[in-house]
Structures are given as C-alpha cells and as structure tokens.
C-alpha cells in the first residue's frame, strides 16, 4: 500500500514516480515573461522562503540574487587552477632541463627561462579552462539524469519559452495550502505540485 500522497493534481506521476513515499517535492509556478519570474522570486524571498529555485530557458540577470544566491566560488577555483597549471608547467620544464636531463644546446643555459614561457602559458590556460568547465559542472551537480522537476509535464517548456519558480517542500515555511495560495498571487499562469 502506498501512504496517502496528494497525487490528484498530477496523474502522469502515478506511472513514473520512482518512490511516492517521498511525497511532495514542491510547488511550481509557471510564468510567461522573465520579469514576472524575477518579481515572483523577489516576493517569495521577501516572504521568507529560501529553499527555492527558478527555472528559465536563458540566464536572467539578477534572478539568482533575487533567490538569495550570494556569490559563486567558481572564479576563485579557476584562479587556483590557473596558478597550479602555470607553476606546475614551469617547474616541470625546469626539472626536466636542469635536474633530470640537462642538455647543452649551443652553450645556452640549462635554465633558459624565456623558452619555457610558451608551454607555461598554454598549461596555465588549459588548467584554468578545465577547472572552469569541470568546476561549473561539479558545483551544479551535473550530469544528473533524474530530477523531480522533470516529473511535471509542462516543465519541458522551461528549456523553450516558459519561466518557472519552484518552492520546495523542505523549506521550513512550506505549508501546502498557504504556499499554494501565496504563489497564486504572484501572477503565475498556473501553480502545480511536483512529486518525487
């Protein structure tokens, strides 16, 4: 027997949800214009909701800040990646040419630093870029093939022309009826429940 879960709004889920025991993931409001989503996010944040996320087919300036997201650590990581690449690249060439296998090339010094710059430069860029891409994916938790928001059939429009705000059930202020009526005041086209 399944525990009693409010699935009445979403028949589609009966067939696909992996574990209905988790119940409700959150409430999802759908908007037509990007600025509607932005205003809704600001209102929800002002109301005290924190466990929420906006979904949009393109980046919207100020949305993540409106949702309470402070600052990404990514630039710092990329800087560290670049420094590691640069120092590592130079140190490696130094070790090869001065310590491990010194080779006299036309009487030039073993430590001929100008000749080491191109490879050092390239490795700096390479390590910084790898950190930027892999760091972005890792911090975003991608690849992630399953996520409850995909259970909502309309959510496929989030990659096309619709804008969504999801307040998650784990938010301490979340109460199904109250949150639903609050979200309906935000100018959404539709508010639906999202199941696990």
């Amino acid at each position, binding site marked *: 027997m399944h525990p009693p879960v409010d699935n009445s709004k979403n028949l589609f889920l009966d067939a696909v949800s992996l574990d209905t025991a988790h119940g409700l993931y959150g409430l999802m409001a759908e908007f037509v214009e*990007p600025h509607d989503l932005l205003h809704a*996010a600001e209102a929800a944040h002002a109301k005290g909701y924190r466990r929420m*996320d*906006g*979904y*949009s*087919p*393109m*980046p*919207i300036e100020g*949305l*993540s800040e409106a*949702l309470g*997201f402070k600052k*990404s650590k*990514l*630039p710092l990581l*990329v800087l560290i990646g*670049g420094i590691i690449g640069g120092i590592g690249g130079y140190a*490696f*060439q130094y070790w*090869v*040419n001065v310590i491990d*296998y010194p*080779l006299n*090339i036309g009487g*030039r010094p073993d430590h*001929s630093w100008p*000749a*080491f710059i*191109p*490879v050092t*430069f*390239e*490795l700096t*860029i*390479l390590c*910084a*870029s*790898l950190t*930027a*891409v892999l*760091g*972005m*994916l890792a*911090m*975003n938790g*991608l690849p*992630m*093939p*399953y*996520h409850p928001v*995909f259970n909502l059939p309309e*959510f*496929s*429009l*989030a*990659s*096309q*022309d619709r804008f969504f705000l999801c307040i998650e059930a784990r938010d301490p202020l979340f109460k199904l009826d109250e949150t639903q009526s609050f979200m309906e005041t935000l100018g959404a086209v539709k508010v639906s429940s999202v199941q696990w």
Partner: protein
Amino acid sequence: MSQHDKDTEERSNGPSQDILGAGHTFSTVTDKISSIVLTRGTSRGWWVGFLIGFALMMMMIYSIMVLLVKGVGIWGINIPVAWGFAIINFVWWIGIGHAGTLISAVLLLLNQPWRTSINRFAEAMTLFAVACAGLYPLLHLGRIYLFYWLTPYPNTMGMWPQFRSALVWDVFAVSTYSLVSLMFWYVGLIPDLATLRDRSTHRVGRTVYGLMAMGWRGSAIHWHRYHTAYLLLAGLATPLVVSVHTIVGFDFATSVIPGWHVTIFPPYFVAGAIYSGFAMVLTLAIPLRAAYGLQDFITDRHLDNMAKVMLATGLMVAYGYAMEVFFGWYSASTYEEYLVRNRAFGPYAPAYWSLILCNVIVPQFLWSRRIRTTPVLLFIIAIIANIGMWLERFVIVVTSLHRDFLPSSWGMYYPTRWDWMLYIGTIGLFLTLLFLFIRFLPVISIFEMRELVEQLDEQADQERLAAAGAASAADGSKH
C-alpha cells in the same frame, strides 16, 4: 540631400542594419532553429553536400593509407624543401580556426550582440578546422605510430621532449587550443541540447540529446555558475587564440632561414589567421543562411560587420607583406635581399603575385558598403581570400626553403598528386563534419538568441519610454 543625411536615412530605414528580423519571440527563435534539426527532415541539398564531402574524405583516407604504407616519399618533399604541403595546410587550417574563438570569446567580452547568431557554427568550424590541421604534423612525422613521443611522459629511454623547441611549443599550443575550443563549444551547447531533448518527439533523439544535455534543467543557480564559467572561458580563450598563431609564427621566426627570421611573423600570422577565419565564416554563412532561410538571424548587418573585420585584418596582412620587403632591404643581408627578389621574380613568382592580388588588391573592394551587403560578391571575395591565404603559406614555406644560403643546395619543390589528394581530402573531412553538425545540432545558439530577443525588447521599451517622455516634454513647452 547631403551624403550624411542619406547615410543616416539608409541606416534607420534599411532593415539591413538589424541583427534580428522583426517580430521574433522566445518561441519563434526556438522553433525556427530547432526545426532545422528536428522537423524539417533531410533535404536533397544536404545529401548532395554531405556525399561530396564524404567522397572526398574517403579519398583522404585512401591517400593516408598509401602514405602509411609507402612513407612520406610519395609527397613532393625532399631536401631542401622538407616542409611542403603538410606545413602549408597545417598553418592554413589552424588560421581558419581562429575566427571561431575570436567571434565567441573576444566579441563576447566586447559585448557585441551581433556575434550571437554566428558564434555557434563559427566555433564548430574552428573545431573541424583544428581537427584537419592536427592531422598534418602527425602524418608529416613519417613514423606516425611514434606520435606520443611528442608528449612528456616517463619512458624507458629516459628522455624528455626538447622544451626549447618551437615545435614542442606547437604541440602544447594546438592541443590546448583544440581542447579549450571543444569545451567552449560544448558548454555553449548544453542548454540547447536540453531544448532539443524537450522538443524531440523521437525516442532516440530524446535519449541522445538527453544524455548530452547531462540533465540540464535551467536552474537559476546553475545559470549563474554557467554564465560565470562561460565568461571566464571567454577570458581565457582570448589570450589563447592570440598565442596559438603566435607560436605557429615562432615555428618559422625562431629559425635562421632567410624570410622566416623576422620579428613581425607572430603578429602578422595572427592577423592573417583572423582574416582567413572570417573569410571562411563568410564562405559558410552565406550559403547556409540561403539554404535554411536564416536571413532573419544572419542578417546583412552580420555580413557587413564580418566583411569589415576582413578588411581591417586584410590591411594588417598587407602591412606585413610590405614589412617583409622592407626588412629584406633594411637587413643589408645578401640572403634576405635575395629572398625578396626571388619571391617576386623567381620560379614561384606567379604564386607570390597571385597572393598579392588575392590578399591585398581584392579586399579593397570591401571599402564599398554595397559590396559588403551583396552576399554573392562577398562570397566570391571570401573564397578569393581563402585561396590567397593558402598561397601566402605556400610562398612563405616554399620560397624560403628552396633557395637559402648555399646555391649548391638549391632545389625546386613540386607537390605530387598525393599532396593534392590529402589536401582536398581534408576539405572533405571538414565538409563531412560540418554537414553532420548542421543536421544534428543547432547551428545557432538558441538560448543566446532568446537573450537577444529579451535584450532588444527591453531596448525598444526604453526607446518608447524616452520617445513618450520627449513628446510630453515638447507638449509641455507648447502650452
């Protein structure tokens, strides 16, 4: 009407100045671009183009097989000209690749909204051109099965690559460039792959695009990091793109061969790369927008802007040619002087003068706005520029090597049919990859087009407000 009035009128009336056709919304740009992949099917023109490319690629594979069996002796290279087509084509392809990164990264940082509709396929072009370029040094090794000796790895011989050699710098520059271009391209594709995943009605399409999109759901927090990463990548790719052709220039400039041992090579190679890259983007964009009816997205304004970049970099290249001649005289070195004379009047003089025609004289037509906005003429000029840049590399590589210091070791270089087959074959590889890309991936960045729609909407709103404000102010002053 004065010339100035005429210009401004043309600009305000002509739709040619827009970077996006009128009346587009989030849905229409999404529909139009994704329909090329998802609903329009495979046209006969696509098949013709793909099969031509594929046949040429088969020819490339054949010529590579023969090369691997018989060795590089089947090419026209020998002493004194040991570089030949392999290096000419390597430099040519790498140069073509530069426009992609330039459009994606540099124009992004310079906040040029017109890049949006051309960056995706310019990046794809970069990747494919770098793939073609990468083949040549490997095949030129002769012992291709030992290519991994180029990388520093601990080995039983106890040896390391020679880090003082420009050729080792090249290995690092080109492999970094291809990896960073690939990452930049793929990161740009992720949100569009999610769009294709959500729009595809076919099981296979949903699965493959779904896997490639990695579960992208457009979360605001994700977008935030995504945007940060994208900007950082652009910032990193900008010095990278300059460094790559600089290092290719070093391959020549760090030698002592007359005509190569000049300080202008690195910057003049970079300018030439951008020139040839933009020429290739035009060569591809003009037929593409005609075939798929993308005139709303790739407008005359885009063609105009790209032609201007071509003109500017073409002038820099022309300056480079002038400086080469000047250095020949100013060096007071017999060998340098002879090189200049030999280029202009020696056995390869036809190649030299054709290159001057293609890269110095023909681009001057781009001063005319009418020519810049006539796609057919622009296409012809772009093709000529591609040929000109190939000739430039031919002249640089061959004329310097074939007669250097000792007349007793002078010689002539003639490409063989295997040289030509490999060269035309890599064009086939390029076309094959390009046609597959056009068929299976969005040729224009959909999410950036949505951003552009939003941005232009906001601009229009502001202008309307400002106009209304001005009108009411004028009203007020009347009373």
